[in-house]
């Protein structure tokens, strides 16, 4: 591996080499350094509510099955038969005590154990079934209904990995008693861009909104936003590679039904989340590396699954407060699918831009160039009330710089103690 990450990411100068989006060697290295090490989002707990419930997922390009065992514990394994490497489960979801490989019939239980091997006498008693269980993730944990796992036994606990990002996750997924639920159904589609291009966009690319999404806004697919009064505190960096974009706390850029609902539940949400909610409304974010959320125009949680340097498979769900009335859930459903997803009036314009930002880097000379992420350079400051580094203006590329700085550290093989060293002062 002769790629020098140092020369590709200069976050002090706001420069990123275009090779990060197209170089096959970098992509290969991301598999080992990022997707096999970081905590990855699998699914929401409401998608596997009962013992035996399973759903399939990905961690990087690895096939994964999330499976609640008979005792009720959520587990996750490579969705791959230990015998000849066949894909074990072929369905998106279901409920099972055991799943049987379609090739030779090896059967695995919902604890991952190898339960059945046809014609076992052919092994002359030498097959130790204990040794051939499904490959389990190294750690699995659930935060506010969000199920995460990592293949790295040495990774810090999930709560530590999330760090100060936890409150911002609360502000999206745990606003009311019962948290959120996912609408049934998922948007899944393949987009010709590098996975980091949407990831950095969801770090909070405030700059692209009015121009890239001008058509969707002018056609009424998102409420017109009042001009922000508080120009600071739009881009928040709570550390560990996670990024958030906020708006002013009284932002009301939702569907009319949702605006009324938000007014009704404001006191309850405020009591739950505390005074930080008076300072900011989190609306977009990236949990490093490839989980993103948006709340407002759409309520979407999505994963950017890498599919080669120039391809990304997006999985996107819509979520609603579990306790919201049916009319609000319906408004969230319609606003969400009309703005984000393959038919989304916002997202399809993003995708065309993400595609060409990636594919144009295939040129040898283009690949040598640096991208400009310099907006607001040097104007970040730590905000003790928000527990995050913030930009000093409502337009900034500070979060993109933090994202790539963290990406470079992970890619260089920094150990976990330095990766989760507190970037946020006590």
């Amino acid at each position, binding site marked *: 591996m002769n790629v020098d990450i140092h020369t590709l990411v200069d976050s002090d100068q706001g420069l990123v080499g275009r090779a990060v989006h197209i170089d096959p060697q970098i992509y290969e290295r991301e598999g080992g350094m990022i997707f096999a090490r970081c905590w990855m989002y699998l699914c929401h707990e409401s998608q596997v509510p*009962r*013992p*035996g*419930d399973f759903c399939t997922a990905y961690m990087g390009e690895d096939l994964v099955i999330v499976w609640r065992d*008979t005792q009720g514990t959520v587990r996750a394994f490579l969705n791959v038969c230990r015998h000849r490497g066949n894909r074990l*489960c*072929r*369905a*998106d*979801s*279901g*409920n*099972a*005590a*055991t*799943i*049987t490989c*379609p090739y030779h019939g090896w*059967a695995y239980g*919902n604890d991952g154990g190898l339960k059945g091997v046809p014609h076992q006498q052919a092994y002359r008693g030498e097959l130790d079934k204990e040794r051939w269980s499904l490959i389990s993730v190294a750690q699995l944990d659930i935060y506010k209904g969000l199920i995460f796992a990592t293949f790295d036994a040495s990774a810090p606990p999930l709560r530590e990995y999330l760090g100060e990002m936890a409150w911002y996750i609360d502000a999206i997924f745990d606003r009311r008693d019962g948290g959120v639920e996912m*609408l*049934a*159904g*998922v*948007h*899944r*589609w*393949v*987009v*010709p861009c590098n996975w980091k291009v949407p990831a950095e966009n969801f770090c909070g690319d405030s700059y692209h909104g009015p*121009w*890239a999404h*001008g*058509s*969707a806004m*002018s*056609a*009424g*697919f998102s409420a017109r936003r009042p001009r922000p009064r508080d120009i600071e505190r739009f881009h928040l960096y709570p550390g560990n590679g996670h990024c958030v974009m906020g708006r002013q706390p009284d932002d009301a850029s939702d569907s009319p039904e949702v605006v009324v609902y938000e007014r009704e539940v404001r006191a309850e949400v405020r009591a739950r989340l505390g005074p930080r909610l008076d300072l900011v409304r989190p609306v977009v974010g990236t949990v490093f590396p490839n989980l993103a959320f948006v709340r407002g125009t759409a309520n979407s949680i999505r994963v950017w699954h890498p599919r080669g340097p120039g391809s990304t*498979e997006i999985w996107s*769900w*819509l979520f609603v407060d579990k306790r919201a009335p049916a009319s609000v859930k*319906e408004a969230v*459903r*319609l606003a969400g*699918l*009309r703005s984000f*997803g*393959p*038919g989304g*009036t916002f*997202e*399809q*314009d993003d*995708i*065309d*831009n993400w*595609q060409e930002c990636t594919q144009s880097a295939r040129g040898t000379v283009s690949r040598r160039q640096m991208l400009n992420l310099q907006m607001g350079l040097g104007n970040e400051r730590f905000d003790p009330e928000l527990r995050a580094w913030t930009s000093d203006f409502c337009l900034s590329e500070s979060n993109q710089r933090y994202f790539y700085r963290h990406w470079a550290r992970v890619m260089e093989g920094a150990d976990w103690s330095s990766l989760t060293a507190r970037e946020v002062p006590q």
Partner: protein
Amino acid sequence: MRPDVMLDVEQFLFREAHLLDERRFQEWLGLLTDDIRYWMPTMGRYYGASTKAFAPLERDQPERPEFSDENELAILDETKDSLARRIARLDSGMAWSEEPPSRTCRFISNVIVDESDTNAGLIVRSNFILYRTRGELERDFYVGSRQDVLRSDGGGWKIAYRKILVPQNVLAAKNISNFF
């Protein structure tokens, strides 16, 4: 179904496809009733009841349909107003996914026309291929089926309901920026 009605309905669908291929969206909008529901569900894949791929733990699992239901996530779920706004977006000069626009060629076939039980109009099923090109070498084939309800308002057929099924568990196209 009377052959002249069959022929009439087929010609209506062919002319509708022609309008869309020519990007005459305002004229197309005029073919829709004011109360149209125009929707494309998402697809999932699940084992059927007879599968031997697994042994269930909970015995009372309902069999899940492949396509999402009306109150679930959809790729499109539109009213006449939201379709009009999608068209206005395309006309804004800033709809980057269609700027410059894609080129399409639609094939409509397997048309089956039935009377509705409730006298709500005709129930028309059809299959389609929507071939789309854009940019340099981008090509998409959307192949699927539609279930329409057509009503006559005296001046010709209008589409009162359209359900579009594209049987792709993971959509291979980067977006759905055309009408079906």
